[in-house]
């Protein structure tokens, strides 16, 4: 193949469409123009549509009275409260189910993931059945299953299932005893915080000493004893300043205690069980990613089995596990928005649902809802970047 090319006379510049820098500039200008034109078109249409329907834009509606009640709220709320307060109640409910979901999913997920690698054939099979069943069924279906097929078919309040006269489960929800703190209880959380600070100091001291002298004490166990033992000692020393308010059946319903609504239970169960199946896979692959040579080398150094796990396998596995784990946490929080399908009063349900329908302020409401989730996502991905930079392997 011969290519015919005439050399360009010296001093003559190439035409602008052959100049990379200029081409990039033109292309980007075109992109900006296109995006700007598109946005202008949308904004123009929206203004026309809004004025046609008589909807005023702006966030003024947030201080209007909401006029509807919410079945579960962590702060004071009544139908006289404002839409702004509705937003806060929804946000707190989202964070509540998200936080408890993350906790439960982590516990179940790590247990199942480790069980999946068990040398015991039956346990490994069972863990595999769990993973393959729950991650291949849509989450919404699982939420419906727990809500409509399990919790809605429970007996009524009069025939509720009792667990030791303190915990009751019926179609209206789960009733738990509520602790009532007497004066002097404030000391216990304070000791708890002190114990945590002391354990952190102990860990740092132990690590420095280990690096300097090679000697180490079992700081992990010591701090566990410290964190749980110290508050317990204080609790007993102050004469247990807590009384429990038991739920009691009065008429057709229970009074007193903590009521966990069935919507919360269904959402929490489904979210934890579903996400746990993904976490289990992450844990399994994280542990398997550690090459066998690492374990063998540690054995050759005659490290005991628990130290091999603690010093060699887990630190390296965590590096593989944590990035996908955080994205699963994020998924769990985003998935908690499915609450709206069964009426758990989360952000999407009370704000993008009820508030949107009552006020018609579609743009403001959806924008605020999306902004909340985006903020959470951004915070998590900032944490991820920080973590990756911290633990990244420095390679040759």
């Amino acid at each position, binding site marked *: 193949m011969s290519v015919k090319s005439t050399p360009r006379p010296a001093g003559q510049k190439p035409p602008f469409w052959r100049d990379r820098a200029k081409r990039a500039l033109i292309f980007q200008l075109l992109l900006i123009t296109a995006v700007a034109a598109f946005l202008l078109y949308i904004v123009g249409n929206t203004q026309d549509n809004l004025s046609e329907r008589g909807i005023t834009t702006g966030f003024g509606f947030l201080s209007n009275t909401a006029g509807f009640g919410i079945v579960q709220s962590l702060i004071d709320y009544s139908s006289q409260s404002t839409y702004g307060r509705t937003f806060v109640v929804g946000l707190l409910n989202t964070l509540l189910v998200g936080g408890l979901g993350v906790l439960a999913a982590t516990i179940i997920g790590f247990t199942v993931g480790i069980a999946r690698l068990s040398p015991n054939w039956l346990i490994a099979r*069972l863990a595999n059945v769990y993973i393959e*069943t729950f991650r291949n*069924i849509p989450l919404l279906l699982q939420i419906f*299953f727990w809500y409509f097929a399990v919790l809605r078919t429970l007996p009524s309040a009069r025939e509720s299932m009792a667990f030791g006269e303190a915990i009751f489960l019926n179609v209206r929800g789960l009733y738990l005893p509520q602790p009532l703190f007497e004066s002097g209880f404030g000391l216990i959380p304070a000791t708890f915080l002190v114990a945590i600070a002391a354990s952190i100091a102990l860990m740092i001291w132990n690590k420095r000493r280990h690096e300097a002298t090679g000697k180490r004490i079992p700081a992990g166990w010591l701090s566990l004893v410290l964190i749980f033992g110290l508050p317990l000692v204080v609790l007993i020393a102050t004469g247990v300043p807590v009384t429990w308010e038991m739920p009691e059946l009065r008429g057709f319903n229970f009074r007193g205690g903590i009521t966990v609504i069935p919507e919360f239970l269904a959402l929490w169960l489904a979210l934890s069980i579903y996400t746990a199946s993904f976490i289990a896979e992450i844990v399994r692959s994280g542990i398997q990613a550690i090459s066998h040579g690492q374990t063998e080398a540690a054995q050759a150094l005659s490290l005991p089995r628990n130290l091999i796990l603690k010093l060699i396998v887990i630190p390296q596995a965590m590096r593989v596990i944590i990035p996908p784990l955080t994205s699963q946490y994020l998924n769990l929080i985003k998935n908690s928005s*499915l609450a709206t399908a069964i009426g758990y009063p989360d952000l999407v349900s009370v704000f993008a649902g009820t508030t*949107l329908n009552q006020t018609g302020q579609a*743009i403001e409401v959806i924008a605020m809802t999306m902004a909340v989730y985006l903020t959470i996502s951004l915070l998590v991905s900032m944490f991820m970047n920080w973590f990756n930079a911290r633990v990244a392997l420095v390679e040759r």
Partner: protein
Amino acid sequence: MIHNRDMIPERPAPKSVIGPLAWLRANLFNGPINSLFTLIGLYLVYLLFVPAIQWAFINADWIGTSRDDCSREGACWVFVNARFSQFIYGLYPSEETWRPNIIFAGFFTLIAWLAIPRLPLKRWVAAFALLAFPVIAFVLLHGGYFNLTVVPTSQWGGLMLTLLLATVGMIAALPIGIMLALGRRSEMPIVKSFCVVFIEFWRGVPLITILFMASVMLPLFLPGDINIDRLVRALIGITLFQSAYMAEVIRGGLQAIPKGQEEAAAALGMTYWKRMGLIVLPQALKMMIPGIVNTFISLFKDTTLVMIIGLFDLLGIVQAALSDSRWLGFSLEGYVFAAFMFWIFCFSMSRYSQYLERKLHTGHRN
């Protein structure tokens, strides 16, 4: 010297090493803790699987037409039987179901053709599946041409709608995802930041808010006289959502191609689009297939959310059937059936993606 010229005949391995008993001892009862775990596991199996099998098979009713045929204490599959065609086709008129049937047959043939490595003409089949088949499917399902009666999208539903939402979302998201992934790797700052913001925005919000946005805000964005079909609105939302996830999968694949490939192509004087289209993307796309299948599985499960904005996908139609006053109290059967359908699809797809990963895994395993 004593010589034994004959070979000593092979003897079987000792009983303590082979055979089912030895297997039991090695895998289930090696040590007290493991034995305890095995017993706990056996108890769990007894607790969970025995009642489940009794309910679903042994004590179940299978044939009949109304709820009076459900006499036994187990599952009543009569309910699913009676509603089966609705669960598959939604409210599609029953004399027209041959149309979705043809599409189902074509769809599964194409998928099988593309998935089985031995079959030839992959490139042409893929082009047909991505370009021509969606048009044929629309013409056949919607009607209005060739003397076919029009079936409005509000009557589409069931498994048909679930598959349709997932595949259309996927096919539409593929080119957008490729563009976004290339843009995110671009050296042009404005293009790059535009793509980053676009991807992170759609990945950061839950699909349900996107669907709300598509169904509530989209009509506000367009001139008042344009009215978009509800199904199309959902599809727009799903496509935007999916393209962001797709872009990240494709970016991962692009990163796996050594830079030398692109540099060598540049040294041969290829333009950007030739370098990408002929050198980088063909190599990268092959490696991305497992990742693409995985995002497709999540999308397939996520399509259930469209029932919240009033479309009747498989879960939506099951949920609607459960509130039928003639069939109250069969929610467990309905959910188990829907779960089983979703499970079959997702499980086989995830197995396929694992198989591909093993096949494509040519790296060095330590």
